[in-house]
């Protein structure tokens, strides 16, 4: 039933939905909403905008289910849609009028989501150390690693592609973001003595 990677399970549910089993959409929502939430939040949206953007992506999927050629691509399609929509919403909140020209994130780095410092109180010391080093990587790497943390290893490439990051950003090789995090953490006594 629920075997395979997240992308595989999502693909199976989406394929079943498209061939008429409407109940399976609920399963797809349960499977992928967490990663879409983290996508929206890693692009710098506040909680309420992030909710809106995630909902919008789902509604688009239902409206345009036929245009997603390959069921296997549904995870990437949704992450891409959330990322683009987040960019549009973030831009609207910020400065100029929204535009349809969404730059690839090479050119427009996501902002870091603002987080109430009090929230960090729920973390253990080593977890706060990890969080601090992730933040220090910059928004692009932080966003990539945050999403990758929520999928299975064979899906890393699909996620980095959906984020507009180059092939090889992560998986099968470590990639620079993870290499930087690892280097920084292993050199930090607060992590290595945990």
């Amino acid at each position, binding site marked *: 039933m629920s075997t395979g990677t997240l992308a595989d399970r999502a693909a199976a549910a989406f394929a079943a939905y498209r061939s008429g089993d409407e109940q399976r959409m609920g399963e797809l929502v349960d499977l992928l909403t967490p990663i879409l939430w983290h996508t929206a939040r890693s692009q710098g949206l506040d909680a309420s905008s992030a909710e809106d953007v995630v*909902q919008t992506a789902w*509604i688009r999927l239902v409206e345009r289910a036929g245009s997603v050629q390959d069921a296997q691509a549904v995870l990437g399609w949704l992450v891409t849609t959330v990322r683009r929509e987040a960019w549009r919403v973030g831009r609207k909140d910020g400065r100029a009028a929204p535009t349809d020209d969404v730059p690839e994130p090479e050119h427009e780095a996501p902002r870091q989501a603002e987080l109430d410092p009090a929230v960090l109180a729920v973390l253990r010391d080593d977890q706060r150390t990890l969080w601090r080093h992730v933040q220090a990587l910059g928004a692009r790497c932080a966003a990539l*690693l945050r999403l990758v*943390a929520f999928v299975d290893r064979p899906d890393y490439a699909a996620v980095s592609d959906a984020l507009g990051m180059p092939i090889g950003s992560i998986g099968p*090789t470590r990639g*620079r973001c993870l290499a930087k995090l690892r280097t920084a953490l292993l050199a930090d006594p607060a992590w290595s003595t945990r």
Partner: protein
Amino acid sequence: MSDDQSPADASGDSPQLLALAAEPIDAIDLELLAAMREVYSRIDPVPGGLTDRIKFELTLAALHAEVAELQHVSLAGVRDEAAHYTPTESVTFTSSRLSLMVTLGPGREEAPDTVRVDGWVTGGTVTVELRIGDESRLATPDEDGRFVITDVPHGAARFVLRPVDDVERPVITPVVEI
């Protein structure tokens, strides 16, 4: 080791870092990622109820439905012979054309953990679907617009009213606890 040993890298990353980046992912990396997952799940979890709200929105989009408003709720206690306090609830929903009043009562003696739903639709001829959890119950109101659905389990429920003329949009109600 100095940077001039390797071709200039646009990012300015050191050769050591690039070498580390080119290695396959190992158990330490997976441990770091698992720790990140735990951190983000704790400090920024998916808001409660978000998936339910999304499913509702998708149902609306799929049905092209109008959402009825919850108009009125009244709760009247009825004391039965055994002196149990049995709540009987009455709820009214309205849409632009239709109105639905439902009264919730205790289930049959043989099915004490269930609810009896008495409904009354005005404003048009419809079929009624009661959705509760993954279950779906259908009813066709009589000529006065009245219908009864028995043996309904407790839970979060909503009604979908489908005009029989198939021209008007369906109407879907907000969730009520049954």
